[in-house]
Structures are given as C-alpha cells and as structure tokens.
C-alpha cells in the first residue's frame, strides 16, 4: 500500500493494520526516516519536502511491485510525507511483512534504497545561511545499485 500525505502517521496503528488477521506472518521489518537537525556541518531549522503528485505514487507503486515480485511478502506499506517538516519529524515509513525474517529485512532495505533514488521528492532545508536544495548523495545511488544483481533471500 502506498500513502503520500502531508500529515504525520502512527507507526503502531499502521503496522497493526499491516499484519492484522494474517497469522502466516512471522516478521515485519520497518524503517522510519526522520528529519535530522544537521546537514553536513550546518544546522537545519526546518525543511520543505516538494514532490511530483502523480509520478510519486506511480514510482512508489512500481518499486513496491518489484519488491513483491522478488521476495515472498505478505504485505508492504510505504508512507511518504511532503510539505513543511522540522527536525525530529517522521518523513517516511517503509514496512514489509513476511513469513520469513530475512525476506522482510531485505525487501524493506531494498524499498528504502530505491525510494531514495527514484521517488520524485526534493528536500529544501532552511539553515542560518538561508534555504537551500539538498543535493543527492552518491552513496544513495550506490546503495540502490547493489540490488541490481538478483540475489533474493533464501
């Protein structure tokens, strides 16, 4: 399931809904991303997340479908916020439920890595020097590329 929203989310309620009623699920791995107060060595007071409505949902849906094709997953969830956020705020939740622990770990890691390189979101941070657009990190591209070699969980 894909949710793109400006409001915050309730992790406990979202994970409970994800696994509710499916007793074949052995584990749920989730990742929650937060706004940090530091970018490089500059202090960040707030940020705005801009996105491309329509394409965002399409890309997240594509990435989710790829994970579901690759690992045995009972359910997946991606929630990504947009709009004004401040340090400590939740930005993103990715969760994967599976009968198998390792599949849920790998799929969750895959989803967040690809989301970071494909989902059309842009962060603008507010620092003492004024607002600035965050530059993409080469390490994110590298993290995503390691999934290019098919190597599904046992």
């Amino acid at each position: 399931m894909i949710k793109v929203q400006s409001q915050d989310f309730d992790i406990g309620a979202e994970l409970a809904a994800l696994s509710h009623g499916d007793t074949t699920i052995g584990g749920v791995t989730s990742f929650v991303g937060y706004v940090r107060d530091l970018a490089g060595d500059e202090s960040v007071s707030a940020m705005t997340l801009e996105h491309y409505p329509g394409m965002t949902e399409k890309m997240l849906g594509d990435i989710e479908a790829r994970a579901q094709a690759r690992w045995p997953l009972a359910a997946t969830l991606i929630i990504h916020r947009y709009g004004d956020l401040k340090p400590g705020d939740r930005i993103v939740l990715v969760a994967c439920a599976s009968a198998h622990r390792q599949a849920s770990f790998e799929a969750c890691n895959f989803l967040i890595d690809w989301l970071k390189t494909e989902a059309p979101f842009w962060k603008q941070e507010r620092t003492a020097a004024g607002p600035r657009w965050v530059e993409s990190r080469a390490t994110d591209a590298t993290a995503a590329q390691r999934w290019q070699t098919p190597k599904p969980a046992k």
Partner: protein
Amino acid sequence: MKLLYFAWLRTRTGLGEEEIALPQDVRTVRDLVDWLRQRGPGFSAAFENMKVVRAAVNQSYVQLDHPVSEGDEIAFFPPVTGG
C-alpha cells in the same frame, strides 16, 4: 503539451508548470531543452548542466533522446532527495 518544473528548476525558471504548443522541429526531450534554453536567462540557467537534470515523460524517467509529442506531460527536476 504540459511542462512541469520542480525544486531549483522551478525556482530558476520561475514556473511550476505551463502549457505550451509543441514547438516546431522539437522531436526529443533534448530538442525541447534546447528550445527552452533560448527563452531567457532563467531557463538557460535552469538547463545549464543537464548532468544534474532528470526528465520524465508522462511520469516515467526518460533519456534525453526520448521522443516528445503534443499531449505529453514532460517534467524536469534535479536528482531526487526524498526518503
């Protein structure tokens, strides 16, 4: 066709989106970028370095040699930084 600009491409062009008629002799995304550059300093600054610009046609990532046609939704934006 509909053109969309995000993040600093929006700031530099001064536009979030616009509707234009397919310009003459524009067949690909690259042709379109060349045409846009000639519209003024904001546009030439936005499309100065295509290594840091991504393009999507109808909400799918494309290369610069991808064809464009009337009715397409074409978006330009920097490498993404969500998550």
